């Protein structure tokens, strides 16, 4: 009896300790999309920061001295992987926190368990972990993948903060419920766009296309950073004419000039879509990102 009482007292103490210690768990994510998903799972028990500012291509991002400080006191480090944020390896190595490096307890590669698209070559990143050959890194643009990503985040949170595992699990389920309710709306909204040929500035939309049955028939800039050749543009113009392409998809930070040029020649409309949270002011978090895109694309199709 005495032992039981003592045990109960201890348990109460631990619980109190867990709830009392309101110091939130610090998470650093490379992109705003992962930040939003981490907040969805972590709720009020986590404080999440992201490294790459909105409308900056994570491929081209150059870490700043402040980023080192951000990482230094983080418990979890979330990355997109698939060679999208390669600079993170060097940054994590300089932070002198072995648990945040590849294979460490606080290191989370969110591309883990994603069915990657556009897999061609082998990855350029350091070997180790799962070698899956680099694919298209924009996998968060398939809302169904959010289930996998949040699963990976939940697992990492539960591992590093077991006392709150139940809470995180509940938060994630609540988020997934909201997501699936929203999903039906997005799908309905995009029915008119299904299969209609579109041109995009760059191949960011593979996962989005797969989920919502969209047809990206060509890209203005097939190799990132290299302006299109005149023969490529001539081919695009031909394709736009023969397939009756009505919409050119572009992100806010991608150059407008060539899209406008093609639109002027063919009468197609330009649709400004956000591939990342924060790319447009309306895309405040993961769910509103898809709200905005569905709305913008549906409007362009009208």
């Amino acid at each position: 009896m005495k032992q039981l009482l003592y045990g109960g007292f201890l348990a109460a103490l631990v619980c109190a300790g867990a709830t009392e210690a309101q110091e939130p768990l610090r998470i650093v994510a490379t992109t705003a999309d992962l930040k939003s998903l981490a907040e969805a799972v972590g709720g009020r028990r986590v404080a999440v920061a992201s490294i790459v500012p909105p409308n900056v291509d994570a491929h081209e991002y150059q870490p700043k001295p402040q980023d080192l400080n951000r990482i230094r006191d983080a418990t979890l480090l979330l990355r997109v992987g698939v060679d999208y944020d390669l600079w993170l390896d060097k940054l994590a190595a300089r932070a002198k926190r072995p648990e945040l490096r590849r294979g460490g307890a606080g290191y989370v590669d969110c591309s883990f368990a994603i069915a990657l698209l556009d897999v061609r070559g082998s990855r350029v990143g350091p070997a180790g972990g799962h070698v899956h050959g680099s694919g298209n890194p924009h996998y968060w643009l398939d809302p169904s993948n959010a289930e996998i990503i949040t699963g990976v985040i939940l697992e990492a949170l539960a591992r590093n903060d077991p006392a709150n595992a139940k809470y995180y699990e509940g938060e994630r389920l609540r988020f997934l419920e909201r997501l699936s309710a929203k999903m039906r709306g997005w799908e309905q909204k995009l029915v008119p766009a299904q299969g209609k040929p579109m041109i995009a500035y760059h191949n960011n939309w593979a996962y989005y296309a797969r989920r919502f049955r969209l047809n990206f028939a060509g890209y203005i800039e097939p190799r990132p950073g290299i302006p299109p050749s005149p023969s490529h543009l001539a081919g695009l113009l031909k394709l736009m004419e023969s397939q009756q392409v009505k919409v050119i998809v572009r992100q806010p930070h991608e150059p407008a000039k060539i899209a406008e040029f093609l639109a002027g020649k063919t009468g197609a409309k330009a649709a400004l879509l956000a591939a990342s949270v924060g790319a447009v002011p309306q895309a405040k978090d993961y769910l509103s990102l898809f709200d905005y895109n569905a709305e913008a694309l549906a409007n362009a199709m009208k």
Partner: protein
Amino acid sequence: MTEALNLLWLPFLAALVLTGIHAYLGLQVLARNIIFVDLALAQIAALGATVAFMLGHPVSSAGSYAYSLIFTLAAAMLLAATRTWSGRIPQEALIGVLYVVAAAGAFLLVEKAPQGSEHIKQVLTGNILTTGAEDLAAVIPLYIVIGLALWAARARLADPGGGWRGWAWDFFFYACFGVVVTSSVALAGVLLVFSFLIIPAAVGVLYAKGVGRQLAIGWAVGAAASLAGLVLSYAWDFPSGSTMVCVFGATLALAGLAWPIVRGGRRKFDRAARAVRAGAAALLVLSGTWLMIAPRADQPLLDSVEYAVPGLGVSYMNESEIEVYRDADHYAKRYQREAERLNEKEVRSRWQGEALDDQQVRRISSFLQSYNEMRKGEEFVKREVRARARARIRWLAGPVLILVGLLLLPWRRR
């Protein structure tokens, strides 16, 4: 053909317009020895546009243009004032400093407004391919007015004198220059505008003395190089701006090589011919030696000759080597085709027919990867066979190359 014409005639017209004004400005720039001034002024204009953007003026609005202009004029004042400031530092050094500080300053500003980076790019990386008729309609009158003004003031500009008057003439030149460069860089990008500025003028100066003749030569060279660059970029599927810059560079090299033939007279021509022969001889001797030392390493001369003459690569292999090589080549191409077919299937399934589930997508990915690895394996076999064949023939081919090189050497007859 009509597609190419349809797409390229406006860019070509733009190139003619740009050559027209820049060849003339280029002559002035060469005379004043301020080669990189256009880069500095373009970067300053971009900085001005960035500041305008930070203050809330939308991209390519009147406000944005006004800020660019004010920044450019301020830089023009500075450049005019520093020409004879101390007499100890060449002005090119100050121009360089202006360029890096403007570039770095713009980056610092953009740190605080990420959308601005697109803005800077827009100011600095025009794409001549997308030039519209309305763009040309805007710049042609401007260039004509500035060109005429500079022509009218040419005597003054050549010898501005000292004091306030000298400063004012210098300022006039830099201001005109800045306004032109800011508009042309937005049309064609920094690299191409630099080529328009320096290369036709340089060829003109190389071959003629009077300004009129220099200009005529510069214009002809600029027009020909622009046309060649645009056509090549279409035929070879390359970005137009970079192709044109390279063609301009090649034009200057050709003009330089042709100079001793056209202008130099017998003795200079002989000297140039000897230099070319000595260069070729050195290349052959070095290649022959390198082949004997390291037959399995990259052999730049052999590699490029074999690339240019397709049959040559297999000519020194024995029968079994040829068989292995052809086999590997066949399979490498086949794996490539298979991978493309599979990829095509997956892309199509995103919107057409039955959607693939994650499991199927993963299977396709792993197939793609295997094909890729297998293709790499075959490529490795091809390289290995070639390396072995080269190692086998090196004691014959190496000395032959060296011998040919030595024969080519321009020995002096005593």
